[in-house]
């Protein structure tokens, strides 16, 4: 199975960071008043084409659904090393969070899946992060991210 590597981007930065499971990640303010985790990913050994990218997020403690989102993505021709990197980070929509589900200061399991015909899983990456509110907007962030 191709290797799909997520790499969340810190607030305000557009460089790829290497994060590990359990690491804190500051939520990035969305322009309409929300807060999100942004991820840039790369995929190896996958032919160029249009696939379905499924983004999911669950609260690690109890599996509560935070996000399930599907959309088409155009995967380009891989580089010589077999990797293709998404041209820009994509948002994992966190806040406003679903009612009753806090998504800050607790581990959240994120999964990216590339799906082919018939929803066949072609690539998958999992990472657990602990989203944190940005200090400058802590009050508002806490209000809309704690369910």
């Amino acid at each position, binding site marked *: 199975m191709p290797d799909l590597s997520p790499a969340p981007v810190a607030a305000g930065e557009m460089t790829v960071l290497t994060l590990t499971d359990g690491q804190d990640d500051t939520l990035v303010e969305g322009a309409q*008043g929300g807060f999100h985790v942004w991820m840039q990913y790369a995929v190896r050994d996958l032919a160029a084409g249009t696939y379905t990218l499924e983004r999911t997020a669950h609260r690690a403690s109890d599996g509560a659904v935070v996000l399930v989102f599907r959309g088409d993505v155009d995967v380009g021709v891989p580089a010589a090393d077999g990797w293709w990197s998404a041209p820009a980070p994509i948002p994992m929509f966190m806040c406003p969070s679903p009612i009753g589900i806090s998504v800050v200061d607790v581990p959240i399991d994120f999964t990216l899946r590339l799906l082919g015909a018939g929803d066949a899983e072609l690539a998958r990456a999992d990472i657990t992060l602990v989203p944190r509110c940005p200090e400058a907007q802590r009050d508002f962030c806490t209000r809309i991210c704690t369910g």
Partner: protein
Amino acid sequence: MLRRPSFAAVTLATVAAGALAVAYPSDARACGCFAQPSAATPVVQAGERILFAHEADQVIAYIQIKYQGAADQFGWIVPLPSVPTLELGTDALFTMLDKSTLPQYRLTRQQNYCGGFQPTNGDGCGAFSLGGDDTTSTSSSDMGVAFSSGDMALGGVVVEQASIGPYDYAVLKADDETAMLQWLSDNRYFVPAGTSDAAKPYIHPGAYFLALKLRGGETTGDIAPIVLKYTSDLPMIPITLTQVGAVENMGVLVWVAGEARAIPRNYYHVVLDDLPVWFSNFTTYNLEMINAVHEAPGKHGFITQYAGSSSLVVGQLDSPGRYGDLATLRAETTPSDYLHYLFAHNYRFDGTLLSILSRSIPEPQQLIDMGVPLLQFYQNYDSYSQYVPGTDPDGGAFAPFDPGPVTDEIATRIVTPARDANALLARHPYLTRLYTALSPKDMTIDPVFSSNRELGDVPLLHTATVTTACSGQQWLTTDLGFEVQYLNGLPPNLNLPGALRVELTRDAGPAELVQDNSDTIRAALGPVDHGHQTSPSDPSSGCGCTVGKRRVQTNVAVLFALCAVGLAMRSLRRRQS
């Protein structure tokens, strides 16, 4: 130039809007925030109607803007996550969506007789559609997109400044509230009191505001829906900002076109207890919806009025043959022929078309003075042509008429938006219609819409049956499984919950129950006496029914005799043939 609002259009609006008077108490609705010129002339926002779709990485939002007030005091702002593209929409889209996805209530009356049921009124009486908000706005417009930003020295907070149709608009950076509000004020985009506080959640680096105002010379009747396309994952309504100019219980009607059923991500999902709707003979539907959503915590709830295939709306805006051929229309050189072509090809003579036509085929002042509505003038143009200055008494050519500009405007303002909207709906197999009503003080959380592939459809049709026993009182049975005894043909006067259930809907999995009023409702409804309906197979009773202790016996011999006569006649016909 439109000289006055079309009487016909105003009348249509008044009559049709009455059906949803509670949900839309006045003629002003939009997504975003109306900017009030002053506290003394409040501009109310009484409702929002929005169609959302998501394609690639973009949210597409069709937004109907309605406004009451002076043209030079119109202002409208909305926060956006990225620089949007802007197009003109069409009111016809919302009229069509409203009509096509409006819940229908069908009441069947049945007469209980001889151990069975028989409809007494064919398919039942009371097939009822709740009546759409067929509001026809009194709008007119300019045409096309006239970008002027290239001539302007942009900078500071302004990202883009241009014109489209009847609007001047500006896209502003929202990273500095003071600078943004000052720019709006300096450029006569009115900023109401209270905007500063309400806008705070949307002010930060990387965010934008779109501001609209009417171009000079345009009237409020020129206000048209707009289509915004912007990079974002999930559609959201900036309702917090909307509170600045909203009315109490402002109706918010949202359609989401997508791959699966849309859900309110951060609002409760409310299932309407529709017994009061049946009891009121459907007249209180909107009031019951408001009552229902108000039972959600924080009054933050949405009712799903329809969820299912989008096929019921696809093709309606662009049915085969509709709009005819624009080249042919452009070749019609007399007003009479031009109008005949429009009528013959199912053009909807709404406010937009009336306004466009009024510039090229103006109603004579004499007819205006006589009180002849604009629509009536066009419908009977040939009869009224004697009043048109310069018109040949025999109905000949109307000298100044030029079909070119008016056809261009019709193409830009009516045909293209309708076809684009139809194409958008056709690209998405699923459509969800959601409703809520919010008062300004409750506009504290911006609703976000996501989807859930595992939830079932919500049909348009709701059914119930009123059964009349052989003797005794009628009772009502609804498709939600409730029964209630009627007294002397009338429903009981009960104080019932507005919501049947309050739920949480997630992006996956079934709805989670927050509050279930089923037992409360059943307890309030009380027992139902169906009478005793005997079985035909009961050898001791024959055919009959019992209501209470009173037994009603039918004449079985007569039934057998009728049956025998029928068989005999059938046998006779066979022999003859």
